[in-house]
């Protein structure tokens, strides 16, 4: 009888440990950001800031003034310019933007267009204040279509 009880304890313990091991989330999913999904035009609020997707347009070439000189950038793909309205929630914060393309690849906003007033990397979001801003991505044209059809924008 006592031998049976011991066996049951060992088997139960092993099952418990195996269950914990199998359901333990891996590192990548533990440290990933909390994502709030909203459709274009709606305001999504996260812990640090809130944002709304206002409009988008594309361009083959972008010209801007950077630190007093006029700069023109062209691309093999296309420039995607996204207008956003962002506001701070609990504390002053800065944000970066990415575009998740149709292929699920993550495109960071391009550093080739920089130092432009009102661009998102110039923005210092403050609690209770909203700002209109824009961000520029450089990507193959077919990455936009899927993103637009999905209607999701992740901040």
């Amino acid at each position, binding site marked *: 009888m006592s031998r049976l009880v011991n066996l049951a304890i060992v088997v139960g313990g092993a099952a418990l440990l195996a269950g914990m091991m199998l359901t333990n989330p891996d590192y990548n999913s533990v440290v990933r950001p909390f994502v709030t999904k909203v459709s274009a035009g709606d305001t999504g609020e996260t812990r640090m800031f809130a944002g709304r997707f206002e409009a988008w347009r594309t361009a083959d070439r972008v010209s801007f003034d950077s630190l007093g000189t006029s700069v023109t950038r062209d691309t093999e793909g296309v420039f995607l310019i996204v207008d956003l309205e962002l506001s701070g*929630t*609990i*504390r*002053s914060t800065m944000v970066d933007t990415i575009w998740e393309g149709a292929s699920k690849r993550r495109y960071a906003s391009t550093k080739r267009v920089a130092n432009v007033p009102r661009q998102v990397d*110039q923005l*210092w979001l*403050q*609690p*209770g*204040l909203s700002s209109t801003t824009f961000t520029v991505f450089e990507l193959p044209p077919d990455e936009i279509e899927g993103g637009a059809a999905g209607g999701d924008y992740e901040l």
Partner: protein
Amino acid sequence: MKRIAKPLALLAVTLLCLGLTVLLVGWSDIQELRRAKNWQVTEFPDPKGELAGVTVSVDQARAMIVPGKTDRAVVYLRLGLSGEAMADWGWCNVSLTDPKGREWFPLFNEVGNTAIELLGDGGNSGQSCDSSLRSPPEDGGPSFSDQAFLVPVDMLDKLRVELSGVNTRPKAVSLPFKPVLRLPPG
């Protein structure tokens, strides 16, 4: 009774070891968490207070509504620090807080520099709180620093300034201030 006492004692020892292990492994994390935030804030009724041997005061508080954007205002604060223990602070953490616990940090950009230029007195304009810790005036008077913030206009009379040093945390002081409203130039 005797048959139960031994397993119980073993269980107790196991739990004690578990607790000790958690404490030992988590010690550095617990210390880091203590230092990460102003956990113990002392609220003073006047714009003058004391923290870790340093007297903290709000010397000047001015505000200006941003031209063209009437929902927001820039706040200019001139803070004075005095006391021997200033060097022990390490670095400053300055923020404005509202009753809901929201935090506004000083502006480190063009807008901030312009605000300090427009609302400050000139003088040692632009000295940050960190550099005021490093270079106290030789006459023993308070060491001043200038900072600018961007806040919603309707919060102007509800804000307090919260101040701590990296080494004073988790302790911090919170001082009230009444900003004097100024008109934009022109």
